[in-house]
């Protein structure tokens, strides 16, 4: 299924400390072409720290971060972006009042003409935006309409399509379905799987939702308190087991025992 077995990104024993507090310890991760890696975990489990390191927001303190086999230490997202590692955050970096096509090319506008008459290549940008969105299965009637008028899922896809268009090989998606309804989530999930399988992009999919993860994931990692709680390929995992880990794993069974009085687990009372 994977087109190239060599990982684009490889993390070996990555760790990050904030002062005395260790936010992340001993994380190993490989991201390959055409593969969707799901990272799950509770609030404060270390998901944000992990993707921030991968996206270049700040460097890691321990371990090794390899891109195409080369050790890297990023100090700005730009450096990561230049190597084709792009993050799409929940805020999406879209401007609501700006037309779809202007958003698509914002900051990387195509121009033609010379000197004082240097101008936007509107026709080309419109066509490219239309093509790219069409390929993702989104069919917008009017690319001049403000992005703010699109549905949540469509906006998400526009942001993802933009990252892909500008050369992302690894796409980090930070909770893309968190604020979406069922139908809109479906749209985004379909596109995530399409981006990976058809365009050969390595996707890192951060989510709270094990159902969404299980639908599109090839590889699953559950973080808990800064450590890896579960790390397994799809072939060795059932949805039930994933949900069990997501819901709190062993901690939850302890809680269940306590509540239903199958014998006090906690000492004291």
């Amino acid at each position, binding site marked *: 299924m994977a087109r190239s077995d060599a990982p684009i990104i490889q993390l070996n024993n990555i760790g990050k400390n904030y002062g005395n507090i260790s936010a992340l310890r001993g994380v190993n991760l490989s991201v390959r072409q055409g593969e969707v890696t799901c990272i799950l975990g509770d609030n404060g489990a270390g998901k944000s720290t992990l993707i921030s390191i991968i996206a270049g927001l700040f460097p890691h303190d321990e371990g090794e971060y390899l891109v195409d086999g080369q050790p890297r230490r990023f100090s700005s997202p*730009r450096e990561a972006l230049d190597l084709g590692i792009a993050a799409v*955050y929940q*805020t*999406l*970096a*879209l*401007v*609501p*009042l*700006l037309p779809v096509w*202007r958003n698509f*090319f*914002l*900051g*990387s*506008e195509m*121009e033609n003409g010379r000197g004082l008459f*240097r*101008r*936007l290549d*509107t026709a080309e940008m*419109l*066509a490219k935006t*239309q*093509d790219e969105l*069409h*390929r993702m299965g989104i069919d917008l*009637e*009017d690319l001049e*309409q*403000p992005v*703010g*008028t699109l549905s949540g899922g469509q906006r998400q896809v526009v942001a993802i399509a933009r990252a892909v268009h500008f050369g992302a090989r690894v796409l980090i998606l930070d909770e893309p379905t968190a604020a979406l309804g069922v139908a809109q989530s479906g749209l985004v999930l379909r596109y995530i799987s399409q981006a990976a399988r058809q365009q050969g992009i390595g996707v890192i999919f951060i989510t709270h939702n094990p159902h969404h993860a299980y639908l599109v994931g090839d590889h699953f990692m559950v973080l808990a308190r800064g450590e890896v709680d579960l790390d397994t390929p799809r072939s060795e995992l059932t949805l039930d087991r994933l949900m069990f880990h997501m819901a709190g794993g062993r901690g939850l069974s302890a809680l269940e025992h306590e509540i239903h009085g199958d014998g006090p687990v906690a000492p004291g009372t």
Partner: protein
Amino acid sequence: MTIAVEAARRQQLRPQSVWKRILKRPEAGALGGAILVFVFFWIVAPPFRQVPAFTTVLYQASTIGIPAVAVALLMIGGEFDLSAGVAVTTISLAASIFATHVAGSLWAGVVFSLAFALALGALNGRLLILTKLPSFLVTLGSFLMLQGLNIAITKLITGNVATEDISGRQGFDTLRTIFAANFQFGRVQVSIAIVYWLVLVAVATWVLLRTKVGNWIFAVGGQGDSARAVGVPVKQVKVGLFMLVGFACWFLAMHQLFAYNTVQSGAGIGNELLYIAASVVGGCLLTGGYGSAVGSALGAFIFGMTTEGVIYADWDPDWFQFFVGAMLVLATVVNTWIRARAAKGK
């Protein structure tokens, strides 16, 4: 390949009437307003119907419109400039005093005041970025400071509240031709300020809609964080916009200096609100990210018609202020309604 063909076909098929296209533009409300005001004064004020009256209206509009174009771009970029009204006077004073008391040459005064105007804009912009305060506050501060400085420094240097007449000095005639000429157009006298105004509006429209920088201005005002995230130099864009306002103020300042020969140090107060009002009537959103240069021109045109129309109709000039206020509220309501419709894609 098939996708591209399909895309092209779909674009041709897109049904979009001219009427809807016009209604979706930010300046749609102002266009309607301008027509209404024009018809209104046409009916109530007979002298308004003559061609010379129309050029007077246009001239009046240009003195509001020149700074208003820049203020509109600044507002689209998400900021205000309350100091623009008095800045015009400050810049006139700087040119006049520098020419008569320091350099002894009018040309030197003109060049000095241009540098001064751009520096003033840059200072406003830098202050905004350094303090992270809202521009309303920063420029309110510079407005009050300039207002004080205008009178204090003029009194200190000239011992008077106005500068001396510069009309006898060398270079005056050439500079007047450049900044304040009147030329014959058919049967009427037309001020060159009108031409400059229209050129400025055309250039601003081109920049806004057809260049990269224009895209950035909309983005910076619409959602600064998103713009920064995709690599738009937000701070430079904002400082640049404040400098543009400085430039537009300089242009009007030079026009007024060479049209009237002296500068009254107390002038200009209140005009900043007129520039903002013209921009808002023209469709600029107070929160930024939306608006147009043509809209600001229509807004200025409405106020120009009103100023002159009130006079031609033989009313008390104080009605003008009332009218500006009423127009502002009405235009904002109409614009909000139109934008809500546009947002729904109707």
